[in-house]
C-alpha cells in the first residue's frame, strides 16, 4: 500500500484478530440479515462465518497461501451472493469478498501498523483509522448526491428512485428515454438554445471589459484602487436575490425587463468579478519589462498587448471566461426575475420542473450538466498548470 514502512509488521495473536474480524462480519451480517427478515440472525451468522474464515485463513492455511486464500474467499462470497440475491448478489458478494479477504490479512498480520509511527498506543491507532473512516464518510457525503443522480437518469420508469428492476441489474430497468425526452422535447430544446444564446454573449461582454479593467487595475498608479475593486467585486458579494430584485425593479423602469438584452446584461454583470479576480491574479506574476522591451523595439501599445501581453495572460483570461460562462449557464435567480418566458433557460426550466411537475428528464439534464462541468474543470486545471509553467513556477 504505502511505499515505506514505519513500523515492522508483526503477526497479531488470534485472540485479538478473530474478535475484530468477527465484529466486522457481524456488521456486514446485520445488513444481509435485516434485508432477509432477521437482523439478529444475520449478526450472529456473519460473526461466526467470518471468525471461522479468519481462523482458517490465518492459522490453517497461513501466509504462504495468501493469494489462493484470498481468491477462495472472494469465490465463496460471490457464490453465497448469487444464491441469496442473483445478479446484484454477485456484485455485492464480490465486493464483500474482496474487502474481507483483504481485511482478514490486514488485521491478522498486523499490517495496519505499517504506515504509523511505532510509538502509538492501541487507542491512538484506533483513533487514526476511525478518523480516516469519518473523513471517508464526509467525502461520500460530498460526492454521493451527484453519483446517485447519474444512474437514476437511466431509469426506465418515471420515478425519482431506484426501481426493483434497476437493483436487479435487469436491462429492462434501464433506458435512455429521459435523454430522448430531453433531445426531442421542444421546451427543453428551446431552453438549451436560450442558455446557449445568453451565456456566450454575457461571457464575451464580461471578459472583454473585465480583462481591460484588470490590466488597468494592475498598474501601480491607480487612484481609488480599493473603492474601484470593491465596486467591481460587489456582484459576487451581494446575495443573488437582492441583485435579482434590484435588477427587476430597475430594468422594468428602463424597459429592459423581459428582454434578451436585459438578461445578457445582468449575467455579464454577475460574471465580471470572476474575470477580474482570475485575470488580476495572472497579472501579479506578469513581468512588466516584457512590455517595455516590446515598446523599445518599436511596437505600438496595441501590438504589444496582442503579441506580448495577451499570449502570456491568456490562461487567466480563459479561465475567467469559463467562470463567467458557468455563472451565466448555471444562473437561475436573476434570470427568473429579469427574464420573461421567452428567455427561459435550462436552469430555469429545471427549477420550475423541480418545483412543479417532477420528471426524471431533469436528472438526464443534470447528468449532462455534470459531464459538462467535469470537462470544464479539467480544462481549468490544465490551464492553471500551463499558466504556472509559463510563469516559471513548478506545476502542482
Amino acid at each position, binding site marked *: 500500500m504505502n511505499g515505506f514502512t514505519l513500523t515492522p509488521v508483526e503477526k497479531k495473536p488470534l485472540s485479538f484478530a478473530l474478535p475484530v474480524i468477527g465484529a466486522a462480519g457481524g456488521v456486514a451480517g446485520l445488513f444481509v440479515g*435485516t*434485508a432477509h427478515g432477521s437482523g439478529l440472525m444475520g449478526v450472529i451468522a456473519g460473526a461466526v462465518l467470518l471468525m471461522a474464515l479468519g481462523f482458517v485463513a490465518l492459522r490453517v492455511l497461513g501466509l504462504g497461501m495468501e493469494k489462493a486464500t484470498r481468491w477462495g474467499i472472494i469465490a465463496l462470497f460471490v457464490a453465497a451472493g448469487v444464491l441469496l440475491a442473483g445478479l446484484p448478489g454477485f456484485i455485492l458478494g464480490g465486493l464483500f469478498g474482496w474487502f474481507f479477504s483483504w481485511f482478514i490479512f490486514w488485521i491478522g498480520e498486523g499490517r495496519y501498523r505499517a504506515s504509523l509511527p511505532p510509538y502509538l498506543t492501541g487507542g*491512538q491507532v484506533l483513533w487514526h483509522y476511525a478518523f480516516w473512516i469519518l473523513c471517508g464518510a*464526509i*467525502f461520500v457525503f*460530498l460526492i454521493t*448526491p*451527484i453519483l*446517485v*443522480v447519474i444512474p*437514476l437518469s437511466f431509469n426506465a420508469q418515471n420515478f425519482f*428512485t*431506484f426501481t426493483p428492476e434497476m437493483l436487479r441489474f435487469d436491462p429492462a430497468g434501464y433506458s435512455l428515454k429521459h435523454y430522448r425526452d430531453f433531445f426531442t422535447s421542444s421546451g427543453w430544446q428551446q431552453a438549451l438554445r436560450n442558455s446557449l444564446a445568453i451565456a456566450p454573449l454575457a461571457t464575451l461582454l464580461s471578459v472583454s471589459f473585465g480583462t*481591460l*479593467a484588470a*490590466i*488597468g*487595475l494592475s*498598474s501601480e*498608479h*491607480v487612484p481609488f484602487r480599493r473603492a*474601484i*475593486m470593491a*465596486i*467591481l*467585486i*460587489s*456582484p459576487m*458579494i*451581494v*446575495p443573488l*436575490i*437582492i*441583485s*435579482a*430584485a*434590484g*435588477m*427587476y*425593479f*430597475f430594468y422594468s*423602469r428602463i424597459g429592459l425587463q423581459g428582454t434578451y438584452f436585459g438578461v445578457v*446584461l445582468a449575467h*455579464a*454583470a454577475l460574471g*465580471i468579478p*470572476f474575470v477580474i*479576480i*482570475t485575470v488580476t491574479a495572472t497579472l501579479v506574476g506578469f513581468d512588466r519589462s516584457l512590455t517595455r522591451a516590446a515598446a523599445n523595439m518599436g511596437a505600438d501599445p496595441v501590438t504589444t498587448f496582442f503579441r506580448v501581453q495577451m499570449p502570456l495572460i491568456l490562461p487567466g483570461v480563459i479561465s475567467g471566461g469559463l467562470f463567467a460562462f458557468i455563472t451565466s449557464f*448555471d444562473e*437561475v435567480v436573476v434570470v427568473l*426575475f429579469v427574464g420573461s418566458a421567452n428567455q427561459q433557460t435550462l*436552469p430555469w426550466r*429545471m*427549477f420550475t420542473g*423541480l418545483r412543479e411537475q417532477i420528471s426524471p428528464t431533469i436528472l438526464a439534464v*443534470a447528468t449532462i*450538466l455534470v459531464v459538462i*462541468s467535469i470537462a470544464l474543470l479539467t480544462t481549468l486545471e490544465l490551464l492553471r498548470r500551463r499558466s504556472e509553467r509559463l510563469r516559471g513556477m513548478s506545476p*502542482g
Partner: protein
Amino acid sequence: MSDTTQTGPVLAADGTPLKRSLRRALRAQKMRALALIAPLLIFVLVAFIAPIADMLFRSVENQIVGNTLPMTVEELRDWDGTEVPDEQVFRALFFDLFLAAEAKEHTKLGSRLNYEQSGISSLFRTSGRDVGDIGEVFQDALTEIDPAFDEARFWYDMMSGGAEAEGNERLLSNQIGRLEVLEATNFSGDVDFVPGAAISDILPNTARAYAVFAAFTHFVDEDVVAEEEPWEAVYAALAIDLEDPATRAALAGYDGPGADVLRRAADAPLPPVDMKAAFIDSNKDWQRVGFWKVIKTYSPPYTTGYFLNAVDMEKTAEGIALRSADQRIYGILFQRTMFMSLMITFSCILLGYPVAWIMANLPARKANLLMILVLLPFWTSLLVRTSAWKVMLQQQGVINDTLVWLGLVANESRLVMINNQFGTIVAMTHILLPFMILPMYSVMQTIPPSYLRAAKSLGATNWTAFWRVYFPQSVPGIGAGSILVFILAIGYYITPEIVGGTTGTFISNRIAYHISTSLNWGLAAALGSILLAVVLILYWAYDKIVGIDNVKLGG
C-alpha cells in the same frame, strides 16, 4: 547633459524640469489606467449598482398617495384626525378619485394602502366605480335646465371663452403636469384647448376639471377635445361653483360664450352638493377615521412604513409600535434565517475541518486527488445538487428506500426529511461545504507539521497538542470559511425554495414572494435592504479579517 555644478532644478533631456516631466508621465499612466477601467466601471454602475440603488430608493419611496390624490392630501394637511373629515376634503377626494378612476390608477393606490390597513383596497375599488354616478346627478340636472349642456361644442366654446379670449395657460399646464405624474410619462404637444382667463376666474372648479378632462382626452384617449362630452366630474364642478353666491354675482357681468345659459343655470334649483354623504353612501368605510388616518400618514412622498413593516412594526396614532402578535412574521423569519445560516455554518465547520486537516497533512499527490472530490460538487450546477438532494431525501427517495430495505425504518413510517428545516440544512451544508473546506485547507497548508511533533515531544498529549498548538493557528481559516459560508447561506433562495417547504424557507423566499406574488415591491425592497446591510457588514468584517484580495477560486 546637465553639469553637476549647475544649480536649479534637474532638467530632463528635452529641457523641462525632471520633476515636472516625471509628474506628467505619471499622470499619463494614471489616465491610461483609468481609461482602461472606465468602461467596466460604467458598465457595472449601470447594470448592477444602479439597480441596487433603485431598490434602496423603492424601500422608502411612497409617492403614489400624493400623486394620485394631490388635492385630498392638500386638504388633509390641516385635518386634526379626531373625526371624519369635512365636506371640503370629500370634494377634493371626488375630483382626485374621478381622474384616478379614468386613468385606472385608483386600484393601485388601493392595493398600496391595503398593505397598511386591510380593507382600503375594496374601498377605493367600489368608490372608483361609483364616482361616475355621483357626478351624473348634476349632469342630469344641468341638461334638464338647458340641453346645451349635453353638447361637446358648447362646453368647449364656453370654457375656452371664445376664439379671441385671453387664455389661462398656467391652469392648463398645471393640470397637464398632474396628469404626467399620475400616468408616469411625459406629454408633449398642444392640447388644442386653453381655458379662458375670465371664465376660469368665475368658475375655478369647473375650469380646472375641464382642463384636466381636456388634457386627458387629448393625450391619453387621443381624441379631439371639442368633440367629446365632458366627464360627470365637470358637471359636479359646475354645480359646486354655482352654489357660491359670488359666482352668480360675477356671472351677471360676464358676456363670453354660454353666459346666459350659465346665468339660467345659476338661477335654477340644482341638487345640493354633499360629497361626504355621497361617498359614505357609496361605501360606509369612508366614515372610519382609521382609514383616513392611514391616508394622511402615508401621504408624504417618502415613508419609513416599509421598513417598519419589515421589522414587524407599524405606525399608529400613538406613534410607532409593534404589530399585534399574530401579525408578526418577519421577526420570526429573520430569526429563522439567522438560526439556519448559523446551523449550516456550524455543520460546515464540523464536516469541513477533518477533511481540510487530512488534505493538508497528506502528500501533494494524494491531496490533489481528494481535492478533485471537493471541487467536483463545487463545480456542479447548483440545480443538479439541489435536485440530487430532492431525490435523496424524498419520502420515496433513495435514503428512505435504503432504510426501509435494511429494515431500520418501517415502510409506513418513512422519515420526513424534506420540506422542513432539516432538508434545507442538509442540502445547503452539502452545497456550501466546499466554500468552508477551501479557505481552511489553504490556511492549514501553511501550518508546519513540526509544531505538533514538537509539542508532543515536549510531553503534550495528542489532544493538548492539537487544542493548544494546532487549532489556534487554524482559526483564521475557520473564520474566513465561516463568514463566507454565512454570507452565502443568508441570501440563498433556490435550495430553500425547493427543499424547504414552508418551515425551511429564508427571508429571501419572502422577498421573492413579495416581488412576484403579492406585488408589494416596497416591502420586498425594504426586506432586501435589511438583508443587504447585514451582508455588507459581514463582508466588511471579512475584508478586515481576510482581505478581499485573498478571495481564491477553487485552489
